[in-house]
């Protein structure tokens, strides 16, 4: 039951419980204290009364003046109510611990033992008889009706004349105790009135981030990650750590998703590559034969003009097919010298006029000084393809950036433009052949990026496109000396 209770309630309730328990314990302690104080006050006042009484009773006991002794013991009990209710009893015992006089003579008959009164006074009488010293003492037991203060009545020379018992009913100090109790209850109530709402508010505030976190977790997979990330607790405590952990988890989830997507894309591209290579070979073989046949016929045949015209038409068509297939089938050209700085600068020379045509600014950074063991032809084609794409994408008076450098044993070429963002749909099929054909903005043959991708793959490199509303950057990493 408690385990199922939400922290939304659990924390505020716990705080409230702690506050309430604390308040109760404190007020309980205060109440106990008030009770003891009231009792102590009673005993103190009774001791003062007893002192006066025992002095006043001294001559009466000495001269056996019963009536004087009686008048003395009833004087402090002036209120008839007090006397009648038996709230305070004053008893004088003689030397032999027999009752001499008492404020209630009928209850305490003269010259009788205290035991005749009741069990409580009987026990008190035994204690008085068994006590050696002349020091005043207090007798109280649970279940007794009275708190007894017992003090000796001594003659001037210290001889014991008798004993004075002042028995005070608990009812006597109860009013004062109830007063104190009322005060304690009131202040406890006031404290609770102030603290409970604060506790509730504080508890709610503490539970809030946890609640948000829990809610966010249940939404994983149903709502966009960016949405979930917003409002996560960022504090330095455990909940903050939990929030950070959750954030990290979301991040990794995102990466994993991106990686999966990328893997799918490259697998697809590889399949397309294999397919195009296969088809290209299958087409190229008969194509070569057909072109040979046409060539042979042209050389040795005696065809009329009509036939020649048809054949040359066929030949042009077949040549176009071979061109297209050749473009699809990106083959490594073996004859290639090492990449030099000049090879890269050539690409700049080639693209500069086109950039100028659009009044675009070209920022160029080439950190390659020494020749690199990379096939120059392929690298130049990759760079040129990407540069031409960038120029095509850049806006009028836009900006182009190209930086080439050695980074961690790779050649890194980053080509950026501030043109329009590439659409999400297009990003999904960016490197596929003819993917751009429906996209009017892209233009070109539709094979540029396909070829670039194939070349990068052949060089065991990687190509990453990052397109944002502010611009698009293609980054190519080619391992050196692989």
């Amino acid at each position: 039951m408690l385990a199922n209770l939400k922290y939304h309630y659990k924390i505020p309730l716990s705080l409230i419980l702690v506050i309430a328990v604390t308040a109760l314990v404190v007020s309980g302690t205060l109440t106990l204290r008030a009770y003891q104080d009231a009792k102590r006050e009673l005993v103190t006042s009774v001791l003062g009364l007893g002192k006066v009484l025992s002095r006043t009773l001294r001559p009466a006991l000495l001269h056996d003046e019963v009536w004087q002794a009686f008048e003395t013991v009833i004087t402090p009990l002036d209120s008839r109510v007090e006397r009648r209710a038996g709230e305070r009893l004053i008893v004088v015992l003689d030397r032999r611990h027999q009752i001499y006089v008492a404020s209630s003579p009928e209850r305490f008959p003269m010259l009788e033992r205290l035991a005749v009164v009741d069990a409580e006074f009987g026990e008190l009488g035994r204690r008085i008889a068994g006590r050696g010293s002349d020091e005043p003492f207090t007798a109280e037991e649970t279940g007794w009706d009275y708190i007894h203060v017992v003090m000796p009545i001594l003659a001037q020379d210290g001889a014991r004349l008798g004993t004075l018992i002042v028995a005070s009913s608990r009812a006597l100090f109860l009013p004062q105790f109830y007063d104190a109790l009322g005060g304690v209850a009131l202040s406890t109530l006031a404290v609770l009135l102030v603290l409970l709402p604060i506790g509730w508010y504080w508890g709610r505030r503490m539970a809030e981030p946890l609640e948000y976190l829990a809610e966010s977790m249940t939404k994983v997979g149903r709502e966009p990650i960016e949405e979930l990330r917003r409002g996560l607790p960022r504090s330095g405590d455990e909940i903050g750590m939990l929030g950070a952990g959750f954030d990290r988890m979301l991040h990794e989830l995102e990466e994993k998703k991106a990686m999966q997507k990328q893997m799918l894309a490259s697998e697809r591209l590889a399949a397309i590559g294999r397919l195009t290579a296969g088809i290209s070979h299958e087409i190229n073989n008969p194509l070569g034969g057909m072109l040979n046949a046409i060539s042979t016929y042209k050389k040795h045949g005696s065809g009329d003009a009509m036939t020649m015209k048809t054949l040359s038409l066929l030949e042009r068509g077949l040549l176009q097919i071979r061109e297209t297939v050749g473009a699809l089938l990106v083959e490594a050209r073996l004859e290639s010298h090492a990449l030099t700085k000049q090879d890269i600068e050539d690409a700049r020379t080639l693209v500069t006029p086109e950039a100028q045509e659009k009044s675009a600014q070209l920022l160029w950074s080439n950190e390659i000084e020494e020749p690199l063991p990379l096939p120059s032809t392929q690298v130049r084609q990759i760079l040129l393809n990407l540069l031409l794409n960038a120029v095509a994408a850049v806006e009028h008076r836009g900006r182009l950036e190209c930086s080439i450098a050695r980074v961690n044993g790779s050649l890194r070429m980053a080509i950026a433009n501030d043109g329009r963002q590439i659409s999400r749909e297009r990003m999904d099929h960016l490197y596929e052949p003819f993917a751009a054909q429906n996209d009017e903005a892209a233009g070109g043959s539709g094979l540029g990026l396909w070829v670039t991708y194939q070349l990068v793959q052949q060089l065991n490199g990687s190509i990453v496109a990052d397109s944002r509303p502010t611009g698009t950057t293609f980054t190519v990493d080619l391992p050196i000396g692989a």
Partner: protein
Amino acid sequence: MRRVLRALLICAALYCGGVAAAADPIRIGTTPVFLDDQASFLAAWQRYMEQRLGRPVRFVQRGSYREITDLVRQDRLDFAWVCSPPYLRNRDRMVLAAVPVHLGKPLYQSYLIVPASDRSTAGFADLRGKVYAYSDPDSNSGWLAPQAAMQLERIDPSRHFKKTFFTWAHKKVVEAVAVGLAQGGSVDGYVWETLAVLHPELTQKTRVAWKSPWYGFPPIVARRSIDPATLSAMQELLIGMKDDAEGRGLLKQLNLDGYERASERLFDGVQQNLKFYQDF
């Protein structure tokens, strides 16, 4: 010239007399034979006497009969309302002035009272082993009369009770019995009857179990050395109280019919008790 001188002397004498009168009041001792603890009553009685005697009057109270008796013996009191035994013992120093009249007679009784809850006690014999309250050892009704009565019943008062004590006033005997401090007590019957009028809630807690024979009422006595004029003036005043409204008002408060001259014979009963007691 001589006449003038004489007139001056007379004036001086009158003046001195006035001063002497003012400086020398009549001193009257009171004892608890009546309810002498009523200060406003005593003040009214004092005014009454001063108006009629033309002299200041002072009431003097002491803790016991004996102290008042001693003051009279030493001529330090002019009059005293005491009990009969002190008078009888000190006849050489005292003269009878007047005796109160209660219920038409100058007589009263001693009452044996018990708590109202005690329905059975009929006499001293029933109070064996109990606590007993007397008023004053110089009182007839509160000490002497019960002693004599017990002797007649062959009871030894000193062994009969578990404990006895003196309260030094009749009213306090009633209180002691009423609260249960004592299971029996001897009290002046006149005081008990007066209390029954003034404080019935007190006497209701007690019951009169036995009444003694009639005795002469506690008298008002004068020191033997008193000048006859003062004595007769006081006697006339007391006896005349019943003849004027103010005096009757005071008598009503005292629960008395009046005062009359008394003879020594009135106290024969008490005298007998005294003799009885001394013989015992």
